[in-house]
């Protein structure tokens, strides 16, 4: 290789590295800034010019979040709600995905599609009136049920994609061997679809965890989930940015960690669900 070629290759590499840095930096910077704010004492969060590194780093903000509000309870609520809504969605959504994929029920998939399109907010008014009527408002059930609006379509959607990609031969062979439809599903299709179920679980869990609007209207003091709680930490003095950033970080950290560790599954699910999404 001639020196000129070497130089060109080097320039290319540097330019490429720069491009990578540019596209990754917004994500990194916002989360770093969030972390930085959460580690600063109140008065330092408002310093101008601001500095990324806290002068006197402190964990007080995190302590304050858990001490001054029942954040632990909100965390437990969030865990209960997200797991329940996800498991219910899996229990009914996986068979449904199988049925739709194998029976080619296009009309049903359109129904799921439309429910994916409809803004969550529009379910809120009728469901709110329904819960008024049923008087469930002091329990976690309304929240779990409304979260099904999010989780069921995700699960069904991802599962349709996975079952469609499974070869039919195995089940056909099983049916010939005398298995009934259910046995075919239970013993042949289900084990094969395990990766798909994992993906559906993760996506459904994250979207349920992140949901905000249902809780804002339906949750009470003891039934609040984390995103609603963090919004309520907007204190009397909005100048307390430190605790606010700390609370925000507590809410979103589990999801972020999950994302980095199992990004392969998320990528697979979103592209499968996504490409089908149109």
């Amino acid at each position, binding site marked *: 290789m001639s020196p000129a070629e070497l130089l060109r290759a080097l320039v290319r590499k540097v330019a490429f590295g720069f491009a990578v840095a540019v596209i990754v930096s917004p994500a990194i910077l916002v989360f770093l800034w969030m972390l930085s704010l959460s580690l600063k004492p109140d008065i330092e969060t408002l310093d101008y010019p601001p500095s990324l590194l806290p002068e006197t780093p402190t964990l007080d903000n995190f302590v304050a979040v858990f001490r001054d509000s029942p954040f632990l309870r909100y965390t437990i609520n969030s865990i209960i709600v997200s797991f329940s809504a996800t498991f219910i969605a899996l229990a009914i959504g996986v068979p449904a995905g199988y049925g739709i994929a194998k029976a080619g029920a296009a009309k049903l998939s359109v129904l799921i599609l439309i429910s994916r399109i409809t803004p969550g907010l529009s379910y809120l008014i009728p469901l709110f009136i329904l819960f*008024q009527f049923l008087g469930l408002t002091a329990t976690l059930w309304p929240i779990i049920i409304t979260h099904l609006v999010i989780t069921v379509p995700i699960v069904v959607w991802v599962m349709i994609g996975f079952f469609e990609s499974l070869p039919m031969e195995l089940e056909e062979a099983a049916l010939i061997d005398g298995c009934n439809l259910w046995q075919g599903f239970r013993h042949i299709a289900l084990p094969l679809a395990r990766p798909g179920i994992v993906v559906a679980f993760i996506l459904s869990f994250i979207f349920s965890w992140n949901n905000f609007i249902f809780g804002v209207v339906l949750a009470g003091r003891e039934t609040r989930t984390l995103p609603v709680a963090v*919004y309520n930490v907007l*204190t009397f*003095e909005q100048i*307390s940015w430190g605790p606010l950033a700390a609370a925000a970080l507590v809410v979103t950290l589990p999801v972020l960690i999950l994302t980095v560790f199992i990004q392969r599954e998320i990528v697979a699910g979103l592209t499968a669900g996504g490409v089908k999404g149109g």
Partner: protein
Amino acid sequence: MTRQSNPSREVSRRSVLKAGAGLAGLSAFAAPGLMTHAKAQTSGGFDWKKYKGEKIEVSLAKGPRGDLVQKYRKEFEELTGITVGDEQIPEQQQRQKVLIEFTSGKTTFDVVMISLHVQKKLAAKGNWLEDLRPYIKDAALTAPEFDYPDFTQSGIDYVTNTDGTVGSIPCNLDYFVLFWNKEIFAKKGVAYPKTYEEMVAAVKKLHDPAAGVSGWLGRGLKNANMTPWANFILSWGKDYIENGKLQTDSPDGIASADAYAKLVREFGPPGSVGYNWNECQSVFAQGRGAMWLDGIGFALPLEDPTKSRIVGKIGYGIYPPGPKAHRTSLYGDGYGISRTTNKKGAAWLYIQWATGKLMQARQLQGGYGCPPRKSPFGNADVVAQFRSQREFLDSMLESAKIARPGLPEIVAVTEFRDILGIGLTNIIGGADAATELKRATAEFKPILDKESA
């Protein structure tokens, strides 16, 4: 999350005070006190333990008054044996939550802090709250030291509905005062204004963007901006609604809105159209605003060295006389009992305690807000504490003389604030005042007509 419910920060604040020797004397709300009277509430043979073992839920709007009752909640629990589950939610959400819960037919809370300037009429129309008159009269239910006549007439008027029923007991009267930064005033040799014209001149003189100082801080955000405009329209001799007729597009209404919008636009910090009180408060606490027009109930964090850079430099000014009248606007909150609860007795005990003489004295002493009772202002401990900062007390007593409710007593207050507030935001943004207000008034008129029909 706030200082009051936060013991360690309290300690650190004290150490801060110790460190900066001279500062301690300046911080108006620092000293503890009033603990001596805690037993006074149990006198008179009244049975506070009647509802022992019950558990009540209290819905509070986030703010100093919520902090106050939460800080002393244990005292009530010990006094009565009642367990209290309370929580503070930011005021806008709390109002929505209260609305949603009451319309659902059964509330999850037993006691509710209700904003008198927003939801009083709505609560009356929806028949949300117990009529408290029979409770007040009943000696078996009400402790003698509750002493209802100790409340000021304006406080009593504020909670009394047009049909004579009393939906809540007032816990806070929020007068709009002019917070001013004495240091900034002194630097430019400006005195506190005695008239509206002087105020505008002072704003102009003190406005110094190069030094990062805004002459004027006031809410620009839709809905929220209706409270400072109230001060202006009152000073132009009008109420928002007079005899069922909207005055917002009257010549005085338009002139007052234009005047307010101009101050915010030309002498407020950039981005003021999106400012609610909390943004104004942040900027003022940073020492970057000369004057801020807002409720006296927002004073507390300004005097907290962990949150404010201007402790001891704050003046509490009475809003100066305007072109046509000397007025300031008044807002308030009260505690009511949900009509749907079956723990009315326990709920009423809580309200008596929360609005009692001791708690109200603490409210004044700690700078948590202006109590609607007369007795705190005569309390020797309280007055002694403000010897060096008499101004704080005077701003309330003097404002009381010129105060009128800032918002109209109608059901659709929220919509009124929203629709007219959008108009005002647009004017601050540079739109023509007359056009905007005629449009907004016309938009709200059918809603008002429908309500009174």
